[in-house]
């Protein structure tokens, strides 16, 4: 399955991914307009840090996703591509998913859970990956990511 990986060594903590994610999930998809939208767009990736390095926290679209197992409303589900999706219509804000996500990748937007949805409005790209100026974020399969890391190890 294609998803987002991060080469932590390259992340500079610029938070461009956060911004791009917020804009992608706005109505206008325009940075200047998005920050003034009535309902504030929310980013689903948050750059935090290990004790030293910056690290973008986000959903890993787990193969056996604990959040889906825990979700008591059926709001969290896997789509046919293997993406862990969230249906806001079903969500009741019980935070069972937050309780079990080992990555802390889910946040609360009022009474709805919020997490990475792998940019459903885009054909074949991810906003954060595109925005990453150091190319620390990578879009592809696990094997492709490993291959890339292999190529770059000197």
């Amino acid at each position, binding site marked *: 399955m294609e998803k987002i990986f991060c080469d932590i060594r390259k992340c500079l903590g610029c938070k461009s991914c956060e911004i791009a994610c917020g804009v992608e999930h706005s109505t206008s998809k325009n940075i200047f307009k998005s920050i003034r939208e009535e309902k504030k767009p929310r980013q689903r990736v948050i750059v935090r840090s290990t004790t030293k390095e910056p690290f973008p926290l986000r959903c890993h679209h787990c193969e056996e996703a604990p959040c889906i197992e825990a979700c*008591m409303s059926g709001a969290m589900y896997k789509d046919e591509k293997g993406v862990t999706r969230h249906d806001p219509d079903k969500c009741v804000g019980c935070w069972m998913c*937050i*309780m079990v996500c080992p*990555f802390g990748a889910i946040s609360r937007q009022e009474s709805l859970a919020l997490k990475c949805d792998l940019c459903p409005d885009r054909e074949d790209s991810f906003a954060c990956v595109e925005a990453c100026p150091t190319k620390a974020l990578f879009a592809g399969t696990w094997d492709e990511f490993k291959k890339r890391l292999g190529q770059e190890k000197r």
Partner: protein
Amino acid sequence: MHYVIVGGSASGINAIEAIRSLDKEGKISLISDEEFSLYSRCLITYFLAGKLTEDKLKYRSSDFYEKQKVEALHGIKAKKVLPEKRKLLLDNGRELAYDRLLIATGASPKMVEVPGSDKEGILGLRTYQDAQLINERLDKVNTVSILGGGLIGLRAAYSLHARNKQVKVIVKSNQVLSQMLDSGAANFIRRKIEQKGIQVMTGLAAVEFLGGKEVSGLVLDDGRKLECELVIVGKGVRPNLELVKGTEIKTDYGIIVDDYLQTNFPNIYAAGDVAQGKDLISGQSTINALWPCAVAQGRVAGLNMAGKKLKYDGSMAMNSVEFFGLPVISMGITRPKDKEYEQLVREDEKNFVYKKVVLRKNRVQGMILVNKIEQAGVMGILMRKKVDVSSIKEMLLEDKFDFAKILPIIKEGKELFTEREFEESTISY
């Protein structure tokens, strides 16, 4: 191969999916005494509150049985298991033969046995039907007494408050949510719900119900009388064991299962609220009557029934609720009795923030998070994997604590963190 599943809820449905993922051909039959199916009972208080419509209670689409090729028998109760005959006796008199049986009958509310408890208007809250019954009465109700300050009691209180009823919660112990929280965290919740107009009375119990055919009030053990037209009993649940009574199937508080969710009969499995198995943290045999546990157990049982040999790690006490915008999550041991436990606590009254971590030999054994809950799952994984957290102990209660902080621990404990996602996130670290 004929799989028979009794109980079509969290465990049963997930077992069906697990079986079908391995065995596309075998016959699957489902017996459920409920007419309304494929719904999440955890949501019935939201339904009662008027926040969800009936269709939103369903967590699977209505063609589920068809797609999974399941013969679903609703409104039929399994009366008894006949292990020697490999048959199930149904309340319509039929006998149903099985090759593999899953008992996923869940639990029922414990009711109170005091004078007057047979009056109309004294109800448990477990099923959609219960919720409907309550709903139907609500027009003639001004005041509701809730017996029990547990999760279901408070959720019920919350939902009826949302319907503009006067709500009083009567709690036997001296705090709410005593299964889930310590008194520190419980006080935050109590403060919050009282602020919003739900009355909480602790250290009290109902000793008698008043009224004619219908309940009109109750008497407390301190002699006080309360008027109410509806009583909801939320005093915990007890596993539905009737169908194994008098059989060779081993029971204690629930049906005893091993690490594979098998009973003492190799072709009979049990899962969910009815199954008593290993607790991940304490190692003792217990029931954690929780939705995620029921789902996971159903899945593991199903896979094993279809031929896999998958071990279940054990269940963990945990829960998550939100009242009036104040979320709380707790896990594991929250009120240690023993001196061997170390407790880290952070309290911020003004912002309703409360955090607690319980440690034993530098391993996380339990935790409570009030209001700032986002990183609960990260603590959860530390608990599950039973890793030494001495290197990050100082950080655990801080707001900056998050997954990034445990990368070194994951890196070191590769044998424990076997899920691929952990490798993905640490490979370049």
